[in-house]
């Protein structure tokens, strides 16, 4: 019995029994398979030494030079998967991939639009070998349309979707969001559509083709900005830390080097609690701050005075003091602070895992806490081709000799 089987028996995930063929790579394509694996599905990652998943060679680089087996980012977003190396530029490898697809419930890919069709692995071809297959294609800007062939990376999606247009200081230019917001939004919407398509297939026997673009997935999260434009004709501009229903609302300086605490006050009751927590300073009784309406109007003066109060205090201490009075507050946490924060640690946001090439390493957890079958990291990220024998001989019935010969000819490669 392999470790995988062992794990699945002791704690079957909610998707146990479902099998996924995962051509996804880098981030947006790799995440849906990671999520499905954390929830218990058997996810077979198809990759090739001919053209390595960029993330295997990307940063951070552990050691002197990039090593495809030592990338912690890759390990995080591919944990729980099995790896099969198929050089799908070779027709024989394409046939093997189709054979695997015929034994899978779901196929995921995020090559440039049109690539799967050209390889003979498009939806029509896969439906030919598995009539109720569910195939999800994830792309930057969609499988069709005028932007289909635009070279677009995570920051491009932030710009095209409207997300960046409000990110910046009031009166200044857009700064740009330095995260892969679009990749994550695209991946999560793909997971939802895949799960729902499985639900539908189980009831009707029908498969599905799912076209998810990172652009659309990000646009739908722009509810406030899009509706403002639709109903008032205004396009929002950068506006700093601002919410139309709250004041104070912002990040305020604390003691220490570049430490900040976020504070947000909505109701009169919360304002009174904040004033009590500050031991009722004289300025808080000033006419400018006696109602929510006035506080909104004088929010810059309010921010300045509140900053003076927070400036000499510890961000965690301000958080605890305000929360104990029923006021929403939280420190601006840096990366290491999130790793070691008592709340996140008690909840198990990160796990220590063992990887055969890298040794002990932390991985983040999905934290979809289903009471009987929570998400969990089920095995280490696979070495390149680690499961060639298990999958190709096991699922497809290839002989050892045949596998060796295919490896020799770099079909399995």
């Amino acid at each position, binding site marked *: 019995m392999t470790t995988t089987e062992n794990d699945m028996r002791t704690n079957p995930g909610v998707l146990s029994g479902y099998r996924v063929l995962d051509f996804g790579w880098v981030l947006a394509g790799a995440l849906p398979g990671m999520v499905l694996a954390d929830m218990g599905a058997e996810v077979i990652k198809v990759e090739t030494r001919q053209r390595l998943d960029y993330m295997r060679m990307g940063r951070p680089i552990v050691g002197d030079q990039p090593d495809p087996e030592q990338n912690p980012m890759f390990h995080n977003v591919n944990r729980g998967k099995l790896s099969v190396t198929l050089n799908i530029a070779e027709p024989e490898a394409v046939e093997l991939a189709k054979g695997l697809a015929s034994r899978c419930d779901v196929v995921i890919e995020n090559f440039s639009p049109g690539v799967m069709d050209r390889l003979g692995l498009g939806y029509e071809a896969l439906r030919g070998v598995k009539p109720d297959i569910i195939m999800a294609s994830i792309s930057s800007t969609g499988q069709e349309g005028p932007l289909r062939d635009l070279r677009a990376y995570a920051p491009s999606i932030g710009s095209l979707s409207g997300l960046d247009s409000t990110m910046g200081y009031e009166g200044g230019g857009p700064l740009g969001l330095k995260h892969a917001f679009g990749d994550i939004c695209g991946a999560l919407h793909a997971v939802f559509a895949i799960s729902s398509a499985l639900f539908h297939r189980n009831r009707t026997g029908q498969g599905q083709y799912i076209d998810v673009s990172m652009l659309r997935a990000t646009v739908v999260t722009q509810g406030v900005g899009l509706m403002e434009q639709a109903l008032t004709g205004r396009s929002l501009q950068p506006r700093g830390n601002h919410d139309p229903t709250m004041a104070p609302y912002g990040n305020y300086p604390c003691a220490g080097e570049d430490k*900040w605490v976020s504070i947000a006050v909505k109701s009169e009751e919360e304002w009174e609690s904040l004033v009590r927590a500050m031991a009722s300073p004289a300025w808080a009784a000033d006419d400018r701050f006696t109602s929510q309406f006035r506080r909104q109007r004088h929010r810059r003066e309010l921010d300045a005075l509140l900053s003076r109060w927070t400036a000499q205090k510890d961000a965690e201490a301000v958080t605890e003091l305000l929360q104990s009075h029923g006021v929403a507050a939280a420190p601006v946490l840096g990366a290491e602070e999130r790793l070691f924060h008592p709340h996140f640690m008690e909840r198990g946001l990160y796990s220590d895992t063992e990887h055969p090439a890298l040794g002990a390493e932390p991985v983040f957890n999905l934290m979809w806490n289903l009471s009987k079958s929570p998400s969990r990291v089920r095995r280490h990220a696979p070495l390149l081709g680690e499961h060639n024998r298990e999958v190709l001989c096991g699922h497809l019935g290839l002989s050892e000799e045949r596998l060796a010969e295919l490896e020799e000819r770099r079909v399995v490669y």
Partner: protein
Amino acid sequence: MTYPLLSGLRVLEIGSMISAPYCGKLLADAGASVVKVEPPGAGEEARRYGPWPDDVPHPERSGLYLYLNSNKAGITANLETPTGRSIMRRLAAKSDAVVHNVPPADMERLGLDYDALSAEHPGLVMASISPWGLSGPWRDYKAYDINLAAAGGICEGLGEADREPLTFGTPEVGYFAGMAAASSIVMALLGRDTHGGQHIDIAEAETMAGLYNGPEALMAVYEWRVTRRTGHHALDFPYPNCILRCKDGHIFVGSPEGRQWRRLLEIMGNPEWSQEQRFRNRTAMNNLYADEVDGYVEAWLADYTKAELLEIALENRIPLAPVRTYEEVRSDPSLEDLFVVIERDDTGPVAYPGAPYRLPEAEASAPKPAPTLGQHNRAVLCDELGYTGADLVKLYQIGII
């Protein structure tokens, strides 16, 4: 568009603002029957958030509410009354799933927590969305969007070094919690035959600190790279990887691949500055000379509009992307079928974003407008729970619905 993937599924939503309502919307747009419960009188908070047509506030015309609640049925119930709670329990008993973002302590106080509801309905799947989760030292702490962004790692790297850290320009965290809850619910239902009902604990802060920013935190472990606020530039990327000014606005200019940068320089006429020795290494160029080079590139960009630069990007396969205003997003022909016009008497026709995935093999149907407050009281309470018309009048008179 609405697709029939989850048709037959019954979902009860007790949601306000974004997280639970977005979960309900995802399920409703995929075909589930979603009944949304709101407090009688004022309804949920999104009705007071806006924006409104012509800036005239009205609880039935709040844009955020109308967007996030299309395709749902709406009822009212005062959960502070025994009858209101009984209505909830009876509806939950007829539902496959419940999603809420009422604070967990309040759900317990009201006798509407998972233990209470599942006692009568063991197959129930219930998703509780809360800021910090159902356990841990911060479980009862409050949070609004900026607090979750701050603790979740959004703010630390956004902004200028000498100014305060920034958050998203509009509330965003709730969408991620909604996505996590919606997928978790469908997965729990996929496994219901073997696992039975389940209680799902989704913490909004962890949707940011985990999946969204978890990998970023690990960069700190392996490189001890401290994320810094460096304005519109980001350290340690090859130049260019930033938003710059052009003729009519701003444009993202990137070139992770060397050939993309060489092509961009060609288009710019291989300017003299680009031949300088100190610009050989593009990461050094980014970390040491970015402001200076911005000036050179912006001098070229100043002659081109965003639309012209997008054409140049498409023709030459280089990653330029206009920073679009919401008006420009709405008029993008490639998103034409994303926006769906829904007509309500009190707003007229308005185009809302529909499901962000396309299903060419599935039958798509037009979405229904968001409910007016208590619009489906009769349909749900009389037709499904057996109240009479006279009961309905009485429930209204005594402030329960």
